[in-house]
């Protein structure tokens, strides 16, 4: 057996250990350790991606001496490797980019606790990506929820506590519903492992059609995960949670935590339920319409706010709407578009969330548009980074956002329904326009000279900001220019899913 097949196990176990280790380390050491460790993880994930795409097949890995279904099992294919790489890379960039603000946002004695939480969050994300067992998915979903909540309250102001309480209540509701869904599925299939579950479900559906308990299980599970990832109408926790937490935490929460849940949902849909069975259920159409509504409502709310953080948070709600609309098509193409958009949006949003604090710092700590005037000129690095992020969100060609909108369009054309095609195209057009309106408004504002404000020009370049932003920009451009490479990888990975 190739040694590289052990990498998923190593990645998960080492992340769990790093969580415990950062608990003991002093402040600075825990940051340095976490950055080095995330670099190591990125290298391992890249090696795994090269390995799986060369062999062109997925492999399962028995966790212990007992084979599944008695023991636990993880699985790695091309899709899993792509997402492990993407997630770990974004974690690295968000942690590095936001470190400067962490010291001001929290007490020095608690910085290491933040990194311990980040490492546990990494372990949970990797386990969600690699798991082949639906109950393992639930256990690590819990760690992800708790750790995300912890990273919100790391910034010790009253508003984060309030936001974290709201986040916690909604997320626990989501976890509870997900657990009920898992229990019902276990009752129907008698298995927790994904392939046998899929086999039994296909058998049942071919014998007696979609039975009520199956529909209920899928519905509950879907509601649970969509509450957790912030699909319309469950997105109202987003602005406060993202807006007030420390920049690293906001970047991680918006671009990774919610995407981890969505990845699990896609995995369950493709590997447990099966797309053919799924198409016979109403859940697809519900997800599609909620996704489209989410796009509209999120964009309009982003337009209405006059706070830059809230605007980006509501725009996240709209982007989650895109992803769910792609899933709601219930076709191969829809899933590919959704998976690609997970990556594209995660790269862009994490960059925006680590850029905004720089802009507001250049404007003397302001977050309202009026006071941000000229901040992009005073801090040119942040201004350029924000412009790149904004272009990608709007969907201007050569950036990642354009490629994912193109993929959504293709998926809609192939959906075979004229009504769906019209609705999706309309949503894409309208939301691109609204995106353009609110992002360009911000760009005009930050690049308009403010005259004499008494604020200093930003004196020097910070490597801790420039390096992650440059890396994220490079990947963003890569996703935009060579989207074919990534889509081909995702397509090959999806083909191995059932």
């Amino acid at each position, binding site marked *: *057996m190739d040694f590289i097949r052990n990498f998923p196990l190593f990645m998960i176990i080492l992340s769990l*250990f790093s969580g*415990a280790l950062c608990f003991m380390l002093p402040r600075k050491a825990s940051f340095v350790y976490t950055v080095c460790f995330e670099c190591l993880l990125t290298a391992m994930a890249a090696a795994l991606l090269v390995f799986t795409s060369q062999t062109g097949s997925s492999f399962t890995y*028995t966790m212990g001496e007992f084979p599944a279904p008695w023991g636990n099992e993880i699985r790695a294919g091309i899709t899993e490797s792509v997402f492990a790489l993407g997630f770990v890379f974004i974690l690295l960039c968000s942690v590095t980019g936001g470190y400067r603000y962490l010291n001001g946002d929290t*007490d020095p004695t608690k910085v290491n606790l933040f990194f311990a939480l980040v490492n546990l969050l990494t372990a949970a994300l990797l386990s969600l990506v690699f798991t082949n067992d639906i109950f393992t998915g639930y256990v690590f979903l819990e760690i992800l929820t708790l750790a995300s909540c912890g990273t919100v309250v790391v910034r010790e102001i009253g508003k984060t506590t309030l936001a974290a309480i709201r986040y916690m209540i909604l997320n626990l509701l989501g976890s509870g519903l997900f657990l009920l869904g898992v229990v019902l599925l276990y009752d129907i299939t008698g298995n927790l492992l994904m392939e046998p579950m899929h086999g039994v479900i296909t058998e049942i559906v071919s014998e007696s059609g979609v039975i009520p308990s199956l529909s*209920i299980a899928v519905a509950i599970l879907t509601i649970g995960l969509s509450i957790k990832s912030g699909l319309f109408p469950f997105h109202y926790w987003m602005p406060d949670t993202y807006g007030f937490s420390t920049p690293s935490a906001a970047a991680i929460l918006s671009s990774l935590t919610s995407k981890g849940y969505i990845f699990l949902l896609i995995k369950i849909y493709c590997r447990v339920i099966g797309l053919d069975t799924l198409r016979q259920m109403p859940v697809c159409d519900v997800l599609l319409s909620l996704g489209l509504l989410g796009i509209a409502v999120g964009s309009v709310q982003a337009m209405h706010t*006059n706070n830059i953080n809230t605007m980006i948070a509501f725009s996240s709600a709209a982007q989650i709407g895109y992803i769910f609309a792609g899933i709601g098509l219930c076709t191969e193409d829809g899933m590919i578009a959704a998976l690609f958009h997970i990556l594209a949006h995660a790269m862009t949003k994490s960059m925006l969330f680590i850029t905004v604090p720089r802009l507001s710092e250049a404007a003397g700590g302001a977050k309202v548009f009026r006071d941000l005037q000229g901040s992009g000129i005073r801090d040119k690095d942040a201004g350029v980074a924000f412009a790149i992020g904004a272009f990608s969100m709007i969907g201007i060609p050569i950036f990642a956002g354009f490629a994912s909108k193109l993929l959504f369009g293709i998926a809609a054309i192939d959906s075979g329904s004229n009504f769906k095609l019209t609705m999706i195209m309309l949503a894409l057009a309208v939301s691109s326009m609204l995106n353009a309106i609110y992002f360009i408004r911000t760009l005009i504002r930050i690049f308009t000279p403010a005259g004499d404000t008494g604020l200093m020009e930003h004196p020097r370049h910070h490597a801790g900001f420039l390096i992650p932003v440059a890396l994220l920009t490079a990947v963003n451009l890569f996703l935009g220019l060579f989207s074919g490479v990534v889509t081909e990888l995702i397509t090959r990975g999806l083909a191995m899913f059932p």
Partner: protein
Amino acid sequence: MIKDYFDHWLDGECDPTRDIYEIARVPDASRSELKDMARKSREEIASRDTTRSAISAQKKGFYAIYTIVAIVSCIALIGVLLYSVSLLPQYGRVNPRAAAVVERYIEDGVAETGAINIVSGIILDYRAFDTLGESHVLFTALLCVMVLLRMDSKNMRNKKEDYALMMHENFFDLSHDGIIRTVAKVLLPSLLVFGAYVLLNGQNSPGGGFSGGSILGATLIIAASSFGLSRIGNVFTRRASECATFISLSFYSFAKGYVFFTGANGLENHIPKGTPGAILSGGLILPLDIAVGIVVTCTMFGFYSLFRKGMIGNDN
């Protein structure tokens, strides 16, 4: 006019869809002047009866709709869940599809794991990866509570609050109460022995790390509340609890990582299973139970200590 409109749009104060202007802030106005302006404008709005009644009617309407929607959706959810309960198999009837998994656990479980208590065998051997995650859930919860409650420069109490807390501590300090101290002295040794028994005998009888650890944690809490938190804090210091948690968790991760690695690669793992029923049996189950027990004890007592005085141990 158009220029004004454009500027307001840039500020996010009005937009084509709503056409609402907010009161513009005067840059040179002082804080008190601003407050004055805000009060005046509130009064002005309040003086217009029509606006006021319109707003309150809107509010009332919203809450009425909100309540109705909430009740309806809760009832719908309850109905769906009750219906799905009626679809579950009857108590004691095994799902034939799950038979193979259950059969192996029951028939070969003792021989394969070396543990008479099948539950321990399942959670710490067959499905050890899930339990590894589960013990880290506890650790994550401990971290969150520490982030929230541990005292530091950002959430330090002021003197007044400190005094109030001291009075409160004295009021609830039971260490001067002879009855409670005597009862605690009688109870504590047997509680400790019971906790240790449940913890160490997890492979042979119901119990194990989670239950044994919570008994031990509760014992520590009883000791702390009857003899004073600071006296327990002298023994159970912050560093000690951190080290204990760290060592237990990393032992757990690496021991299980080793077993996963050898198992998946088809290597011999050299961990003796022991005779089922003996105290040293079940392979790794006993050491893992001890590790989980330590984590649970530290977590429980840590919660208590953090909630009561915002630190673990006496030093901060």
